């Protein structure tokens, strides 16, 4: 009989390889960072070289790219989008404004730190980040997946209460179905 531990490890490796090699990005341009996505995806930088491509619906997507600031109104939709995504799923925070508010640090309508509301696996710095930086972010994410460290979704499930509490602090009218995956 094969050792279970070994088998698991091999399965993990194969699984992580498969996951990292086809990252489908949900087509949701949440902020101004969306402008650098077309160049990244099209012929000049051709992110499909890495198995990164767009996906029209969240259900088939693996990566939620938060391209910049989120207004509270969008945050609500983003949470809904995220929760509809199926495992494995990853979040990339794109641009300064997802880290500490960026240039909208004193705006009354945008959240400042994305990781308080969604589990973020990789942050890309820049305003905006160049396509090279975007690709670097994806490569970083791939590395994390390969090492089995990109476990944001796991974190989200485990700390759902904490995330919900933060989310409800800024979303005043919580009328959303619960997607319990």
């Amino acid at each position: 009989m094969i050792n279970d531990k070994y088998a698991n490890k091999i399965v993990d490796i194969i699984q992580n390889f498969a996951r990292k090699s086809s990252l489908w990005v949900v087509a949701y341009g949440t902020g101004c960072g969306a402008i650098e996505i077309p160049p990244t995806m099209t012929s000049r930088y051709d992110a499909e070289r890495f198995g990164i491509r767009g996906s029209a619906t969240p259900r088939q997507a693996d990566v939620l790219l938060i391209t910049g600031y989120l207004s509270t109104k969008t945050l609500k939709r983003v949470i809904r989008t995220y929760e509809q995504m199926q495992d494995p799923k990853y979040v990339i925070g794109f641009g300064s404004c997802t880290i500490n508010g960026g240039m909208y640090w004193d705006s009354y309508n945008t959240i400042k730190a994305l990781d308080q509301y969604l589990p973020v696996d990789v942050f890309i710095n820049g305003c905006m980040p160049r396509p090279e930086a975007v690709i670097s972010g994806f490569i970083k994410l791939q590395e994390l997946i390969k090492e089995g460290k990109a476990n944001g979704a796991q974190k989200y499930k485990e700390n759902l209460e904490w995330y919900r509490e933060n989310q409800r602090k800024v979303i005043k009218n919580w009328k959303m179905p619960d997607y319990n995956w």
Partner: protein
Amino acid sequence: MAVDLKGILSPFSALKQGVKPPHTVRFPREKKETAERYRGLHFNDLEECIGCGSCATICQNEAIDMIKIEGFETKDGDSGLRPRVDNGRCCWCALCVDVCPTGSLSLTKDYIYVTDDPNAFLWTPGVDNPDGKEKISFTSEEGKPLLDYQRIPMRELEGMERVKSFAEVVLGYDEEEARKEAARCVGCGICTEVCPVHMHIPEYIFAIGRGEDEAAIKIIYDNNPLGETCGKVCTRRCETVCAISKRGEPVAIRWLKRYATERANNADLIEEIVNPEILPPNGHSVGIIGAGPSGLTAAYYLSLRGFDVTIYEAKDKPGGMIMYGIPKYRLPLESIEKQVGYMQKMGVKIKYNTAVGKDITFNEIKEKHEAVLIGIGFEKPYELGINGEDAEGSIQAINFLRMVNSERPVDIGDKVVVVGGGNVAIDAARVSRRLGAEVTILYRRRVEDMPADWEEIEGAEDEGVVIHPQAIPLEILTDENNHVKAIKYANAEMIPDPNGGRPRPKIIEGDEHIIEVTAVIAAIGQGADYSFIPEDIMEKIETKRGRIVVNEKQQTSVPWIFASGDIANFRADAISAIADGYRAVKGIEELLLKKEK
């Protein structure tokens, strides 16, 4: 329906693109060089940076913090702080780069910063990327500066026009000029560190720029009651460290102070504007010897704090050196009288013509007052130590200035030689010009070694004063009436100091010259005269190289005696004297009020 055959076929021409090589940038395998002025992560040349924080102020994202970093201390001209950028805030607009007065801050070609830790985006430029200097791309040098590096020029009387009278040379800013000049300030406050008084410079400049001159006056009088004097004659160390001066002309801090204080053109108006809080009398009494800048300053603030203050002044006018030592074309009489008049309104009592040791004894003062502040200044000039010095027509510069300032007749003839290179020498030379004489200054060292302000030196040259550097007087020749006839001097060469000090002049043997003169004015420094202090007390007062040793609150080794001004500091300027006076107030207050408790 007609078939659009062309429309169906033409898209197929796209197929020909299939044979062309792709233009894809195969990042990360192949890197595209960023542009020459790409705006990537920050770099800061830590040695160049003076920590003025202009970057932090301009940043609309509040992305920049000024923090303490290791190896940099707060010192003259450097706040010791360095910027740290929160990359979670930065938008790489590079306003911070364009606004940086020193040009130390720049952006580099690096731009990729990817991590899974959201707390790892604090970036101290220069510390986090010590190798950034090689990658600098966006600099402020390339563009035009955002700050105003050109000073609003000060209007002055023409050089040859000036020598005709004792009218003020500097005409002062008008309102518009002052606003414009004040608007150049970045408000960092680095200047306040070197100001002996630590005046609130950025604040009053800001007030002037806003058109609130009265607020500016109030701020100036907060710790300098002789603001107008400083506005005219200060040695302005503040301007030497001004952040703007790193790449441009410093903000004209002195002229702005002059502008603001001149707005209040009589003592009543000053009182109305400054309207200081006056504490009720506390029953303590302080005596001050000498109505110079330090004594006046101390008297003013002590009065405001409820002390009963009396100044004993040997002469018949207040001001000490600023009254008698500074020529009227730099500091008019009315200006001093106005400022002292205001102080007297605030309760300062001045006893004129009361020389301590002559008209009143030191012990009497000791009896009358609980604390005594000595601010007598350096009134005893050094002698040249050459033959003929006691001849008629050989005068000491400060005596000469005092006589001219008190409008007593002085006969210097039409050809004067001034010996020395300090401000007093230049003053004496320029005053002599106004009395109609041709003037030559003999100075031991080079022009660049002269301790006088360069503006003063230039002003003297404009007025036709001849400066003869590296010239050492040897002898004053007299005629049969023991009147000065000529001065003999030798040219000198500069010998480098083996210990690294400044070069010393050495007489070139045989290179001796004689100029015919009608007067020789010596201005090689002064000392203090402590003879009025009884010996038993003087013994207890510690002195060093002719100056009284004081602690940081101007207290001497005799607790109830305080000393200030030239006799207590090595800087020998009005602003240091004012600072001493201001500090002495704290010392006296502490001494007397603590005793009470």
